């Protein structure tokens, strides 16, 4: 599959075409459970300010969708060498469609197509700096996992739209309900 075409001679840039979206992995990175999750605590406080009670904890993860010319070993290399801080974080890698069964209710938030994703741009450059020349794409999102409380889809919709996602630039998916 043709993934890119060479840049024109007028300057130093190349025009990228979309990469193959069929192969897709998720790298999920979160804080080690023994560490204080400041971001999660802030989200929990905002949820309580909405009048929603019962949730004990919120875990926040960075999620990276890697797609294109990749296999599991390459994704693991990207995760370990570029994205993970092994001192404070833990990583999980899975195929995108394997993750539908969540232990706890979750919300995933991603940028809508076309919205600038600066972290993904930097990650793309980092991948090149690692010497990886495969034609792949990466996009970045957040995953919020809720522990405790009697949550239903409606409550998670409220949390998503009022705190976690701005539907003008984000899409969100509710899982584990």
């Amino acid at each position, binding site marked *: 599959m043709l993934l890119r075409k060479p840049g024109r001679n007028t*300057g130093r840039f190349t025009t990228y075409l979309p990469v193959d979206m069929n192969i897709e992995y998720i790298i999920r990175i979160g804080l080690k459970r023994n560490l204080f999750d400041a971001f999660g605590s802030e989200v929990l406080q905002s949820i309580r300010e909405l009048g929603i009670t019962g949730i004990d904890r919120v875990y926040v993860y960075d999620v990276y969708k890697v797609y294109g010319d990749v296999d599991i070993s390459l994704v693991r290399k990207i995760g370990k060498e570029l994205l993970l801080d092994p001192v404070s974080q833990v990583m999980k890698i899975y195929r995108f469609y394997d993750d539908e069964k969540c232990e706890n209710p979750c919300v995933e938030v991603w940028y809508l197509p076309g919205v600038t994703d600066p972290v993904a741009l930097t990650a793309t450059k980092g991948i090149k700096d690692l010497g990886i020349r495969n034609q792949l794409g990466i996009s970045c999102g957040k995953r919020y996992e809720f522990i405790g409380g009697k949550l239903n889809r409606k409550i998670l919709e409220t949390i998503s739209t009022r705190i976690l996602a701005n539907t003008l630039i984000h899409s969100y998916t509710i899982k584990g309900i």
Partner: protein
Amino acid sequence: MSRVQNIKICSADDKTLVRISREGLLSLSIEEMRRIKKYFVDIGREPTDLELEMIAQTWSEHCFHKTFKSKIKYTEVLADSNPTTYEISSLFSLIREATDTLNKKWCMSVFKDNAGIIEFDRNNCICFKVETHNHPSALEPYGGAGTGIGGVIRDILGAGLGAKPILNTDVFCFGPLDISHDELPDGVFHPRRLFKGVVSGVRDYGNRMGIPTANGAILFDAGYLYNILVYCGTLGIMPKWAVRKKVKPGHLIVLIGNRTGRDGIHGATFSSASLEKDIPTSVVQIGNPIIEKKMLDALITARDRKLYSAITDCGAGGLSSAVGELSQECGAVVNLENVPLKYPDLKPWEIWVSESQERMVLAVPPENFNELKKILESEDVEYACIGNFTSTKKIEIYHEKELAGELKLDWLFQKTQLPVLTAYFEEKKPVDIVPENIDLEEVFLQLLSDPVIASKQLVVRQYDHEVQAHTIIKPMLGVDGLGPSDAVVLAPVYSRYQGIVVSCGINPWYGMIDPYHMAGCCIDEALRNIVSCGGDPDRTALLDNFCWGNCNDPVELGKLTRCVRGCRDFALKYNTPFISGKDSLNNFFTKQDSTIVSIPGTLLISAVSVIKDVRKSMSSDFKSAGNLIFILGETKKELGGSRFFHILNLEAGSVPQAKPEISLQVMRKLHTAISQNLVRACHDCSEGGLIVAISEMMIGGGYGAEINLEKVSSEIDAPVVALFSESQGRFIVEVDEASIDRFEKLFKGLPCSCIGKIIPDFRLKIFSGGSQILDVDGEQIKQRWCGALQW
């Protein structure tokens, strides 16, 4: 298949013209559509989509400032007077009048470049610009605020031949943080979410760019519930030779920085409309400070090697605005297929008006292009040559060799016959009341916790205000780093002691009573802050930023006109020229039942001054027990718009009025006193009045104070007036025993009174009428003031 579409307007009737403007989100009026139709009928063809977009962008309120350039028939009815009508040639001319009349030699470039530029020392100039990013921040607070600061940084990079940014400022206005979610209409974010998002956006962009954010203000009022205000400023330093830019035919048009996508399309025309529930996704931009930082480093190197002859940033309107402005005097040919894209399939008009961030346009002599390329490549900055400047006086835009647009620049930028606007202002006669039987201690503690007055350390401490190592007077100071600073002082040249002082003044509550006096108070406050930190009042320049509501309403326009007249009059009286400014109008929200909610008319005055020796700069924290406390300036019964009346829910009282004829003398003498080391600490009296100013100086220094209210003013007998009046032109000053005689001699004939002394015990004791009326523990004061504002 052609990617350029012709829009049929030559035979369209008015109704169709209106529909074309509305459906295309062009925000063009029927008169403007008729002008466009006539132009194309005369040249015998239909316009392309790109041409219509370019015209809409160039003539948008955001880029063309129609309201500020229009003639205004202004009727003013002052209390106890007959109506007077004035013909005003334009609001912009009023502002400009003060600068032209003062005609300061040290003003190097005013009102014509991307920023105002003043002289700093023999070799360098300072440029300063403050922008607003209100609509984008209301829709996506993190991205909107981040791109707000990113945009104004590029303004500084694009001023003259480019300045190095050395300071960011920020001023925000939000709705009340404690409002219930149920009270908010659909499509409006909760103020707390906006607050967190905006602060985080400015923090991340500024910190990642390595620019200190060290001056600003945060206000809260129900009037900002639907439309928040986000002011972002940047100050830069540049060599004097780099002040002027000149585009010459034959120079290459080089686009550098980020790629172009659909983000931000219609941002310029969008800002000409009000906020409504349904907003297109494309108007939102997300910033990438890493790209801008690389671009900054490359540009400063290229500037110093004199590799380009002109530069401007791609702000609102994107390439259309940037290339249009640069080529205004000559002409240009642009090949859009050379523009680096984030993704394929953008239409030519989308490429042309996209507001993708972190892009700048340079005019490069062809012989310098190779050397420029090397610098850009060494900093990993993408670039493309997208055309060249010509002498045809027209702009020609091609895409894949197809003509996508061709417009005569004289016509596009011509001074048009704008409609005469009508404005009306009626002064309300104030009702002066003095509240009695109030619990003084309770009100005082409430004032300290008022989010407008309370410590902003929660926000300030998120910003890096040390990076670049220029910051001398920091935003928070004192023994525990908790005291507030009136302004920031920078020493921008490492080998020299000469410095820059930057401050601001803002108070919309005075404007709700009388926008004219709001202007005077904002200028007075900005100057007070400058002088408090050691700045020279006679070497101070001002920036104006007007954020207003629905100016189609003659009453709103009347308030704006009165405010602008105030700016002119007080700038003249304070001897301070305006060097740059910006207006953001249409800050109103249309509810579902079609009612319009405008923001309170808000003026931000930013001030920049020069201090000869930063070792003579001054801080506000009390330094030593036993030293005496003086008040400079007159205290009057001016409680209208005060925080004291806000706490008591009172809508009454006379608005504070600036008295430049006295204040400027006091400021000049105070500047001399500080320069002669006669002052140990200095703080201005602003929101909350004298008692809040004293409390903040106590928190900074860790000392207490004894104050005798009878010494504050001989005219005032009510303690609440002496404590809470927000009269302008006042300073609280700490003077040691050894300097008292010289200090008092210096202020002979001016309002200057010793009102008490600093005590070692960390308590605030207030005396009036021979007895103690207040005795509050300093720890309680500190706790109330420092702990009130939380995420």
